[in-house]
């Protein structure tokens, strides 16, 4: 029940994402791109049906993804629990068709697939309920 209430509370989610955005900016200023990406992925709203919330979170995640310079060091610091959600956002990035975004997403996608295997891609493609 609590989950449903939270999922419907769009304003609450937006506020949280705004808060997250500020935190990410400060992390990026401290040259902590991996920490920023973790923060962006944490508490993503896949359960909500509201596209505004999903888009708002995508903007935040996109900011963090684009700030990643060294993909190898990203995966030495990123825990496996983030792999599935990161893969979902990479596919969202690829779907934008924006050249720099796609380049960056493909670079990370290659390493992520090496790390997490094809199962990770399958979990991302097969799940039509918890979309990002």
């Amino acid at each position: 029940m609590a989950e449903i209430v939270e999922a419907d509370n769009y304003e609450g989610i937006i506020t949280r994402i705004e808060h997250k955005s500020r935190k990410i900016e400060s992390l990026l200023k401290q040259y902590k791109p991996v920490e920023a990406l973790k923060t962006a992925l944490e508490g993503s709203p896949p359960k909500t049906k509201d596209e505004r919330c999903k888009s708002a979170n995508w903007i935040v995640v996109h900011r963090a993804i684009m700030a990643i310079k060294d993909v190898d060091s990203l995966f030495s610091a990123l825990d496996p629990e983030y792999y599935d959600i990161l893969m979902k956002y990479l596919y969202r990035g690829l779907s934008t068709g924006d050249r720099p975004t796609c380049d960056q997403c493909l670079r990370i996608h290659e390493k992520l697939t090496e790390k997490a295997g094809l199962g990770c891609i399958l979990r991302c493609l097969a799940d039509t309920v918890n979309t990002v």
Partner: protein
Amino acid sequence: MWASTNRATIWAQKIAKLILSLQSCNFGVLLFTTPQFFFFSADRSILDSSNTLQITQRLDSRSRFTGKSMAATSVHKFAQCISCHAWSPDLSMIAFCPNNSEVHIYKLSEDKWEKVHVLQKHDQIVSGIDWSYRSNKIVTVSHDRNSYVWNQEATGWVPTLVILRLNRAALCVQWSPKENKFAVGSGAKTVCICYYEQENNWWVSKLIRKRHDSSVTSIAWHPNNVLLATTSTDGKCRVFSTFIKGVDAKESATGNSADTKFGEQIVQLDLCFCWAFGVRWSPSGNTLAYVGHNSMIYFVDEVGPSAAAQSVAIRDLPLRDVLFLSERMVVGVGFDCNPMVFVADESGLWSFLRFLEERKSASSSAKYGSQFSEAFGKFYGQSKFSASNNVEQSRGAHDNCINCILPLAKQRKSSVTRFTTSGLDGKIVTWDLQKQEDLLDYL
């Protein structure tokens, strides 16, 4: 930049390969619920009826099997494609459907498989076969929406029609442990429980309706002969009571009299957000395992109001079917063409242990290349491409999706070491774990 785009093409190929293997598999059609489309697909998917028997003695010729611990003990290519198979009670005969409307029965005599019977009664692809242990009856179900129970008599196998009352294809079938009932899963979002009525000399079908939101892909009987687990393409796994008055004795039920009404849903597991396939109970009936098309396998203990579920994410391609070898060991088969072993530790925590077949993995870049040409091989027919490169070397016993796994035992036992798998490559492979020392601890 070019390199990364090229990688993306390779991934697209890999996914195309998966979709391709899905399409070549009969179960692909069950997702379309409009009747016209359905019948069209069902007719189209008959691949090859004029199959010739090719017994490939791969074990001798392949160097990769010379390792000290090989798990696959025999590989036989029976047809172009096998949709399902079943063993006779004494394990001397095998029944399978070569992806058409027939069921072929082969007998092993003097190390050679001989075709002894062909069961022809269905009009469309046979999607499920089960051969009962004790009563020596074969039940078959087909996309033509009918089921037959075959009895062996002096003249051969005699079919009895079972009217399932379905408006979509039947997809899977299984005898109950006591063999007085059998269950059929269907594309009509229903499960049929069939039982024999002595006075009418007739098999009666009772339907569990309005419980599934999509096709029922797999069913599994609990050892108590009453509970039935189902998986469906709506992503859920459900457990029902199939208590039928006059067929089941009161004491054989779960104990709780409230749960014994026919068709009552005991539990609905909503863990997987995509198609669910392949469900089985552990030998004791304490644990339930099923797989999802999202490369996950789910283990459920204490099925009931306080069910405890574990989900294990798989690194590789999704599974299609599972089998409990013991209370603590599960083998999953599927799109990776190589059985995966899952084990539970002392605390009951399930994890992936290893692939059953160790395949030589080339260096990372070479692997991408071989996957690429492998995908092409799928498009243009296997033989053309396998001759020109060394992909064949890294292949295992199966080279296409495995969709059926069965224990190889003369009766229901608490642990089995031998089992067989069949798949879209038309092979039936026998596996033996006797020499797999690391796995014997879990039996």
